[in-house]
């Protein structure tokens, strides 16, 4: 992931650099996880170099996700700040008790606000052939927990800003990191590609649109369609928006929030009003999902607005590539939802 690179910075590198900078900025910050020390540097290489530069604050752990998060919560309560890497997001299920029943509850169950600066990183998602227990997107299972914020890695949002803000809020947070995103370039200076530009019309929410003037002078106007998607879905959402424009001449904006929950749609409502269709796309299984949560919130403001939900099939994620493809979301699923 982090080999010498030329060209734009990769998302994985941006995340690695963010971890280095955070450890440098804050002597109380610690990183815990399985196989995170050099020379291995984490199953996806995201923690490379950290243990060499900060050997006292980067701790390799046994295979004990529940206790890792519990230990991190204990350190946070005692005055430290902690980032935990869960090797595969699927294993966050093993830390569910510590996250839901302890860390996030501790913020408010003692009758006063107790700071718990704890961030749990979860490499997530499929399309790499890792099979049913190493490819899931479990975000929805962690929604709606008081004091637990859910983020997703994105090519638009600088990782240092996102991680730093999550720790500074001093409440437990999780960041789900699409594994394919690590090797994709970060978007910088408002440019996505030859067609799309982006801005942040609302803090924390990136909007991609076609620059009609070609020089950044036009903001894309009122779109006919809007796709709302987490960072891991951004490329497929953009591909769908491109296809809508080039094949159907339909303008489509892509909104990518950094924080999935809590998620306030109110500031986005003016940007959604003109749409004839909104699509909320995500990688998890359908039902009781982030998408249905967002759709419900949109309908509170825009009753009657068609909101289409796109999610993976209600199935396990198969290992074989041709089978996995049938289960997971691709750009054509989003295009179909918008048409």
């Amino acid at each position, binding site marked *: 992931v982090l080999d010498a690179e030329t060209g734009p910075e990769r998302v994985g590198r941006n995340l690695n650099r963010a971890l280095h900078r955070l450890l440098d900025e804050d002597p109380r910050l610690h990183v815990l996880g399985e196989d995170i020390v050099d020379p291995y540097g984490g199953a996806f290489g995201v923690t490379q170099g950290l243990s060499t530069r900060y050997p006292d604050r980067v*701790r390799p*752990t*046994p295979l*004990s996700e*529940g*206790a*890792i*998060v*519990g*230990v*991190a*919560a*204990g*350190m*946070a*309560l*005692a*005055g*430290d700040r*902690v980032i935990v890497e869960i090797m595969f997001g699927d294993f966050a299920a093993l830390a569910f*008790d*510590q996250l839901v*029943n*302890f860390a996030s*509850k*501790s*913020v*408010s*169950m*003692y*009758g*006063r*606000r*107790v*700071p718990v600066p704890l961030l749990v990183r979860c490499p997530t998602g499929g399309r790499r052939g890792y099979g049913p227990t190493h490819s899931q997107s479990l975000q929805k299972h962690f929604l709606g927990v008081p004091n637990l914020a859910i983020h997703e890695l994105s090519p638009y949002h600088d990782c240092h800003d996102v991680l730093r803000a999550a720790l500074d809020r*001093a409440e437990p947070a999780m960041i789900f990191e699409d594994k394919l995103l690590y090797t994709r370039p970060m978007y910088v200076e408002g440019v996505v590609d030859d067609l799309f530009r982006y801005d942040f019309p609302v803090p924390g929410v990136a909007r991609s649109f076609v620059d009609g003037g070609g020089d950044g002078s036009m903001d894309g106007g009122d779109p006919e369609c809007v796709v709302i998607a987490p960072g891991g879905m951004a490329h497929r959402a953009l591909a769908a928006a491109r296809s809508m424009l080039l094949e159907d001449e339909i303008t489509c904006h892509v909104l990518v929030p950094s924080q999935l929950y809590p998620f306030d749609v109110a500031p986005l409502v003016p940007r959604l009003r003109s749409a004839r269709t909104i699509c909320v796309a995500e990688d998890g299984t359908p039902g009781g999902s982030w998408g249905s949560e967002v759709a419900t919130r949109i309908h509170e403001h825009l009753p009657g607005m068609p909101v289409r939900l796109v999610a993976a099939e209600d199935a396990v994620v198969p290992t074989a590539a041709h089978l996995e493809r049938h289960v997971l979301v691709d750009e054509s699923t989003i295009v179909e939802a918008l048409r």
Partner: protein
Amino acid sequence: LLLIRRFEETLLRLFDEGLLQGTTHTCLGQEYIPVALRTLLRPEDFVFSGHRGHGHYLARFEDPESLLAEIMGREGAVCGGVGGSQHILRDRYLSTGVQGESLPVAVGAGLTLKRTDPGAVCCVYIGDGSWGEGAVYEALNMACLWDVPLVVVVEHNGIAQSTPTHVQMAGSVEGRAAAFGADHHRVTTVDINRVRAELAPLFSLVRRTARPLVVEFATRRLGPHSRGDDTRPAEELERLRERDWATLYTEAFPDLFARADESARRTVGEVVAWVRAARPSTGEEPREAVC
């Protein structure tokens, strides 16, 4: 000691009178354990407790008003009435309601403590039933691996809610501690001075070496698990009461015991009157409060 006994008895009575709601878990019979450990613990030490924690709290703070107010949801409650009987945080005392959950947390706090307050320990109270939870073993492994100054106090009362130990535990606490290389010491006496004498050098060793210690108290729960849910036969309870510390202390020090008991009853009576008269707690506004 007697304050805890009378406090717990009063709680059960208040429940019967319909003045308390929800649930509570009294430590009747086990009061001497936190009282014995009181002089072995220092203010900079962390204490972690669980569902059966009133004695642990009272031995550390001697502040029954704040605890009863917490349990009854009245003004003056230590956690605004949000936490209740099982979820209390005060200074370096923390309790929470899921079995085994506090052990990894204590290991984390211990790692920080080792750096910020060398020589301080994390003391975690658990029961025999807690050993069914995987979190206990994950935490013991880490504590021994990383030299965390951890003291696990096992109040082995032989019964997990309604399930006797022999129905829920294979092997022994000692064997399990040994598997991780943790020191283990079994306390069978209820004599507080003897408990302290046995444990003082062991606590010192933990402070000096950060080598985890498991202290197993062979103790007895005289009351129900929560309330009105004791299915043990009367003869068995009678047998347990014969070896209760209160019985033994009454025989050994009749006058002293009677005077102390009178004082404890008076204190608890005053506390109940005070808390009953207090207004409902507000629960505060956790999100707006500044940490």
